[in-house]
């Protein structure tokens, strides 16, 4: 059972503002060749756009606390706080036995800003200039560990690392912990803050980023025939998941249900998805099987669809193979950009809200559908739809595939 939601994204500093901006058709993508990202100009990078956070985490986290945290840890704490409070869990230890509370928060790259900054300090100032907090700030388990400390989680603290599938995989692992009755409550999701010179250069060299610098809000265009790559974003999405009995016993408000989740791997190519979408299709099938759903029950798929030439068409093949021709698709990265390890978690929140509110946000910038896509994609404006079940897809470099099945409560 999902009892709490929290997020900080390129469209808003919380879930409500993000959801509202999505329904309003807003874009979180903008030019980033500014003072905060001076490296764009210094290195004359070909990519001058991105989807940075709408609200700086340092505006909500006290200064002294923030200086011990990498940005990726800051965003995780911001989203976790919103989710924890949304779930009405009170003070740590008040409603959940700490040994029955777990954290599963994934990230794609971890504290890369710290790694780069501290390496610069070592090179320019020597050993003495390197912060003693360097390692805890750069380690990829940092976001999960800090959230665990904040809420006193002594059950288990995990940090799945599977590139852009990390956030969705975290939800899948959380579900497994709950189903095995190892814990009662899990704080689960993903966090990412990797808009740096090196990551943008690396993604650009892999030819994965959009170069539509002259029209940032039109750059992320999943499923459109003129798409030319993704837009790098940052953020965090966190859910509070509880065993149904536990949630009922404490009288928690339930906002949705993760009924199943599937994780598979392509074993094909380190960056490119398997073109027929076999592994992706198996992940979707595994998710709905665990959920006890028939393919015909799933009315909607919230797609991974990053706006790359290779990825988007393959995913629709996987959806057709696993579910058939009926699901209605949308691609939230058209508005949010690609939040890497946070993407699957934030998009899972969007999927849940689509079921709960009965409305699917539109895919922005879909002007002419790629002829290789034969499914119905919501475009132009949000579509009202009564949904009993929906799937959220997330795939990552390395051939990681994760699918999370949500059902109505």
């Amino acid at each position, binding site marked *: 059972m999902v009892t709490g939601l929290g997020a900080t994204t390129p469209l808003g500093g919380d879930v409500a503002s993000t959801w509202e901006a999505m329904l309003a058709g807003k874009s979180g993508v903008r030019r980033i060749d500014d003072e905060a990202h001076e490296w764009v100009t210094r290195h004359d990078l070909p990519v001058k756009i991105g989807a940075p956070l709408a609200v700086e985490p340092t505006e909500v986290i*006290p*200064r*002294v*606390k923030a*200086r*011990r945290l990498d940005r990726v840890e800051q965003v995780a704490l911001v989203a976790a706080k919103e989710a924890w409070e949304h779930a009405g869990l009170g003070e740590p230890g008040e409603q959940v036995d700490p040994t029955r509370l777990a954290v599963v928060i994934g990230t794609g790259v971890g504290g890369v800003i710290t790694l780069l900054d501290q390496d610069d300090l070592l090179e320019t100032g020597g050993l*003495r*200039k390197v*912060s*003693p*907090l360097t390692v*805890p700030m750069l380690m990829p388990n940092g976001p999960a560990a800090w959230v665990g400390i904040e809420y006193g989680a002594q059950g288990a603290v995990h940090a799945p690392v599977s590139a852009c599938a990390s956030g969705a995989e975290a939800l899948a692992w959380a579900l497994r912990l709950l189903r095995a009755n190892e814990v009662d409550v899990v704080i689960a999701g993903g966090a990412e803050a990797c808009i740096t010179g090196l990551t943008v250069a690396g993604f650009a060299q892999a030819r994965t980023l959009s170069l539509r610098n002259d029209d940032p809000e039109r750059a992320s265009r999943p499923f459109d025939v003129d798409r030319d790559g993704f837009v790098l974003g940052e953020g965090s999405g966190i859910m509070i998941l509880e065993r149904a009995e536990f949630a009922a016993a404490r009288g928690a408000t339930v906002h949705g249900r993760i009924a199943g989740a599937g994780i598979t791997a392509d074993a094909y190519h380190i960056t490119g998805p398997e073109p027929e979408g076999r592994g992706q299709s198996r992940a979707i099938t595994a998710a709905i099987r665990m959920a006890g759903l028939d393919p015909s029950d799933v009315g909607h798929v919230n797609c991974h669809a990053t706006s790359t030439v290779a990825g988007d068409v393959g995913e629709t093949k996987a959806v057709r193979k696993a579910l058939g021709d009926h699901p209605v698709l949308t691609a939230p990265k058209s508005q949010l950009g690609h939040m890497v390890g946070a993407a699957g978690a934030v998009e899972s929140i969007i999927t849940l809200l689509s079921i709960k509110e009965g409305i699917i946000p539109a895919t922005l910038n879909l002007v002419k559908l790629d002829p290789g896509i034969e499914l119905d994609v919501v475009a132009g404006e949000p579509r009202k739809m009564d949904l009993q079940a929906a799937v959220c897809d997330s795939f990552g470099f390395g051939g990681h595939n994760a699918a999370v099945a949500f059902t109505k409560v």
Partner: protein
Amino acid sequence: MASNEEILTGLAEIVEEVAGIDTADVSTEKSFVDDLDIDSLSMVEIAVQAEDKFGVKIPDDQLAELKTVGDAVDYIAKNQ
């Protein structure tokens, strides 16, 4: 050469910057760990900043001996 009073003021500013403790609470009798709740990571940061500010060297074995704010003020006064 900074006076003991100036050293205390400068040290309190560093402690406030690193650990968020009000400068008024950073007095000579206070223990960094027991009274001000400063952990070993922050102590390293404070030591490095104090070295820069007062032009002293605080080797690790000396740092471990600086239990109170007063210990640190005395050490810096002697070694600056």
